[in-house]
Structures are given as C-alpha cells and as structure tokens.
C-alpha cells in the first residue's frame, strides 16, 4: 500500500512537469494552431543551460530561474517573429509543424554536439535531502519543483485573467478571427503567447534539471506527453493542462508499477486516442469549446 502511495506521489511530482510543458503548448496551440513539438527539446535545452550555469559559473539552479526565464521569454518572441509569423497568420499547420520539427532537430542535435549524448544531472549539496511527510519519502528538490510549477501556473493563470494582454490571448485562443475583428493585433498576442510558452519551458527545464538526469533525446518524449496532457485538459485551459499533466504522471507511474515500465507509454497513448475520439474538448472542457 505504501509503495502505491509512493508511486502516486512520484507521479504527481513528475506530472507537474508535463503540466507546465502542456500549458505552454496549450497557449501556443490555442492562439496560433501551431503544434510546437519542439517544446520538449527546448525544455531539455534549458535544463542544459541550468546545468551549465551551475557547473561553469556555480550559480545555484534556483537562482538561475531569473536569467533562464528571461532568456526563454526572449527566445519565444524571437521564435514567433523569426519563424512562425507567416505560418501562424495563414494557419498553415503543416508548415508550422515542420518548422517546429526543424527547431526540434536543431535543438536536439546542437545539444548532442555541445554536451554529448551522455545523461547529465545537476548535483547540488541539498539534492539528496529527503523529506518525510505522512510516511512518504520524497526529495526536497522534487517538492520545490512542485511548488515552482504551481506558482508558475498560478502566475500564468492570473496573467491571463487579470491583464489586458492576457485577456487578448484568451480571446485569440477562443476565436482568432473574431478577436482580430475586435481590433486585437494578432502578432503581439501571438508573440506574448509564444513567450509564455517558452518561459514555462524554461521553468520546466529547471525543474527537470534539479530532479532528474537528462539527455538530449528526452525532449520528444516530454513533448508527446505534454501533447497528451494538453488534450486531456482541453485546449486553452491552463488549469486543465496542469491537471492533465498530473493525471499523466500518475497514470505513468502507476502503470509502470502494475504492468511494467514499457507498457506505461502504450497505456498513455491509448488514453490519448480515447480522449481525442470521445472527448476532443478535454476532460474538463465544455462542448462549446471547439478544437
């Protein structure tokens, strides 16, 4: 029984990471209809950046949040204006998907060349502290990762609800044509959505770096899981995406405990297909929200 709860908790902790990735994906997909498959590789890229800052300059991973998120936001804006502007305007899905694949190729192989394909990890002095809560062991870093993910999600949620540009992002996500008729400039909104997406990738990257070991080929896996989380949560639904991520994390860890590691992914994909066919608006979405 204890081991089941342990698996559950691990699943939740791991799932928040998929969740943060999925929120980014959800915003990007919602506003621009771009399947940003490179999200996972970008996350790993920021993990490496965090790793570099730590090993070369000795900057603590949690301090490096500030520079990394700044870089990530800028990267998002650069991605939008540099690469995706035209295809987003045309809603040309194949082109944007292929550009995202190109970004993934470049990021993945850049990392392989720059940092070798061997797994790396950020090893801090406090990385080994374990916390015991209600009979469950977990490491301190994982708990902090959970906290950061929830904080980031709340931040994004408040940004989307309370600020004018956030409202514009939501409007575009619901109906981009109608919102541009209302005088919302799509480019600025799209750039903001993209920046938030990659910013969250930065945060997820730091969380990943502090809790697990990583290698360049891990990115696609994360991207796919984020995609599943996104469909579970419903497009444009920030809280739903996080919850979807957590559900995925839990299912994954439970499935690896009960039916074995290899099948866990298969179960996830079956759930993915079932969600797509039976509830395309997500588990928490309303029917009116069309995909």
């Amino acid at each position: 029984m204890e081991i089941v709860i342990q698996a559950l908790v691990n699943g939740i902790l791991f799932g928040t990471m998929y969740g943060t990735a999925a929120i980014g994906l959800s915003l990007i997909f919602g506003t621009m209809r771009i399947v940003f498959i490179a999200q996972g590789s970008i996350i790993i890229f920021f993990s490496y950046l965090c790793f570099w800052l730590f090993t070369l300059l000795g900057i603590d991973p949690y301090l490096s949040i500030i520079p990394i998120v700044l870089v990530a936001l800028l990267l998002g804006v650069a991605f939008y204006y540099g690469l995706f502007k035209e295809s987003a305007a045309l809603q040309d899905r194949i082109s944007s998907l292929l550009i995202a694949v190109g970004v993934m190729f470049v990021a993945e192989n850049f990392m392989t060349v720059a940092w070798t394909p061997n797994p790396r990890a950020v090893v801090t002095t406090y990385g080994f502290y374990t916390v015991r809560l209600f009979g469950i062991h977990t490491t301190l870093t994982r708990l902090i990762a959970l906290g950061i993910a929830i904080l980031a999600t709340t931040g994004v949620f408040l940004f989307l609800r309370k600020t004018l540009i956030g409202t514009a992002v939501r409007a575009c996500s619901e109906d981009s044509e109608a919102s541009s008729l209302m005088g919302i400039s799509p480019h600025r909104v799209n750039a903001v959505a993209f920046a938030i997406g990659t910013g969250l990738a930065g945060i997820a990257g730091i969380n990943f770096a502090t809790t697990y070991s990583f290698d360049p080929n891990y990115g696609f896996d994360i991207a796919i899981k984020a995609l599943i989380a996104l469909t579970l949560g419903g497009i444009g639904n920030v809280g739903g995406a996080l919850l979807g991520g957590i559900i995925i994390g839990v299912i994954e860890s439970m499935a690896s405990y009960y039916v074995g590691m290899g099948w866990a992914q298969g179960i996830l994909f079956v759930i993915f297909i079932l969600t797509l066919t039976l509830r395309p608006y997500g588990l928490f979405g309303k029917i009116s929200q069309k995909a």
Partner: protein
Amino acid sequence: MMKKTRKSSEQLGRAKDPSGFLKSLVQAGLKNRIFLIIIIAVLALVLFGTMPFMIGVDSFFIYYLFMVFIYIVVSQGWNLIGGYTGQVSLGTHAFFALGGYTTALIWLHDITHTWYYFDPLVMALSGVVPAIFAIIIGIPTLSRLRGDYFSFGTLAAAQILQIVILRTTAFSGGAVGLRLPAGGFTDLGRYYWTALLLVVLAVVAVYAITKSRIGLALRAISEDEMSAASHGIHILKYKLLAFIIGSFIIGVCGSLFAYYQFIVNPSSMMSLDRWMFYPLLICVLGGNGTIMGPIIGAFIVVTLFTFGENLVGRVHPMLSGILIILVMKFMPTGIWGLKDKISPRR
C-alpha cells in the same frame, strides 16, 4: 501540284531518316502535353533503368538512387492521404514498419510456401497488412477527428504499435528485431530495379487515382470537407480509401527495405525521423498534393542528407533542421508549387 510533291517528299524523308521521326515526335510532344510527359517519363525510365550497366551495379551512386526511389514511393503513399486529401497522417513509420515486419514474419514462419526472397506475393501481403491496420485505425480516427487531431491520433496509434513491437519480444523480436533467414544478397541491382518498378507503379497508381473521380472527391475533401459532404461525397469512404491505398504503397516499400536490410527492428524500421518526418518533408518541399512533388523532393532531400552525412558528419541533422525551417518559412508551397506562381495556367 507543288504542295503535293513537298508533302510526299516530307513523307519520304521521314521514312528514310530516323531524325525526322524524332523531330516529328518532338513536334507532337510540344503540341500535346500528355504526350510530352509520357516521352519524358519513358526517357527517364530508360536512363535510370540502364544506369547500373553504365556505372556499375555496386557503385555508391546506385545505392543513392535506391534510397531516392524508396523515399519517392513512401512519400507518394503519404502524398495521397496527406497531400491530395489534406489529412496529415503522422503514422507513416508504423505502416512502413508493418510492411517490413510482415515480410520477416511470413518468411520466418514459412507461411506462404513460396520462395520469399523478392517474392511478389510476400511483398503484396506486406502491403495488405498495413492496409488492414489503416482500416483499423482509420475508421475511428478519420470519422471523428479533424485536422490536427487526426495527426495526433495517427501518431498515437503508431507509437502504440511501436510499444507493442518492443514488448512482444517472443513474436516480434523486441528491440533486437527479427533477422531474415539469410537469403542470397548478390548485388544491389535487384533492389535497384525493384525499387524503380515500385516507383513506376506508385506514381502511375497515384496519378491514375488523382485523375479519376476518386481524385476529384479527395481534392474536394481537402479543400472544404463540409462543402464536399453537402455535395454528396461520402467523406469517410473516400478518406479511408486514400488512407488504405497510401498505406499499401508504404507497406510494400517497407517490405523492400526489409529485404535490403535483412533485419527488421524498431530503431531502423520505425525511426520517427527517417520514415515519418522525411517523407513529410519530401512532400512539402517538392510540392504537397502534386504528382511531381515527392519525386523532386526525394531527390533533393536524399541528396542533401546522404552527402551531408558524409561531408559534415555529426552536424548534419542540425543542418537538415535548418533546411527544413528555411524551406518552410520561405517556400511553404514547395518547389513544384512555384510553377503555379510563375505561370498561373494550370
């Protein structure tokens, strides 16, 4: 009187001198586009068909052309569903791998009692199995999922298949894969000509389909599904048909590749890059939803990737990534699409 003699002398000239015949062929070709296309196709076929005799069967160039042919066939299969019908399937690698695995399993378990190595029956069956798989995943995904969701659905189905292959070690060999009972690899020639034959068959089949009423229906679906349905086109039927035929073509090609490798395993047959993204890239680069697109695209992509691998080594996937980005950013209609920009006549 004068006129008559000139005409008869012309006829005489044609009979005597073979270049006169050629000249009249060219003139007929310039007048009639279809005739010209056939002439060019036959010339290309003769050129590529006799290539091994000219430069030696085992030269690197023949291997390179073999890869080009393989990619033309796979991309043409994808083109039918992704290009002409507008349903972007991301499960190409699953059909390809299924073709290869079917070949290996039939051979290993001695099912058809034929000679197996380059057996047309085995190759055809290797197309039938992916076609059945296409029906199984096509009915739920094509009937309920639109646009991106269809892409996700096919990708998920393909990944499920990959996991099943990886896990059912006793049957499929798992990650190690299945070794074909060693046949007689003699030279590249057989592979080359079979691939060329597949190219011809695939191109002719896709061309014939797209020029028929089915092709019209597919185009209508890709342009506007709602409007197509309201004009009495059974959307699911036609989408499924395109999906099945495309999968058949891809599966047969997978079978040929299995013969070439003598081993089928997930990392080579189900490679996401090689058998899913590259065919997509080839189609979009060459011109999506055109018959020439995959041919042009395959030549360009295989050239760049083969020689890129040899020249810059490890950096080459990075360069190909940049290439994908640049092409998609500046030329989203593909190379064959530029033709329409230059001359609006279609």
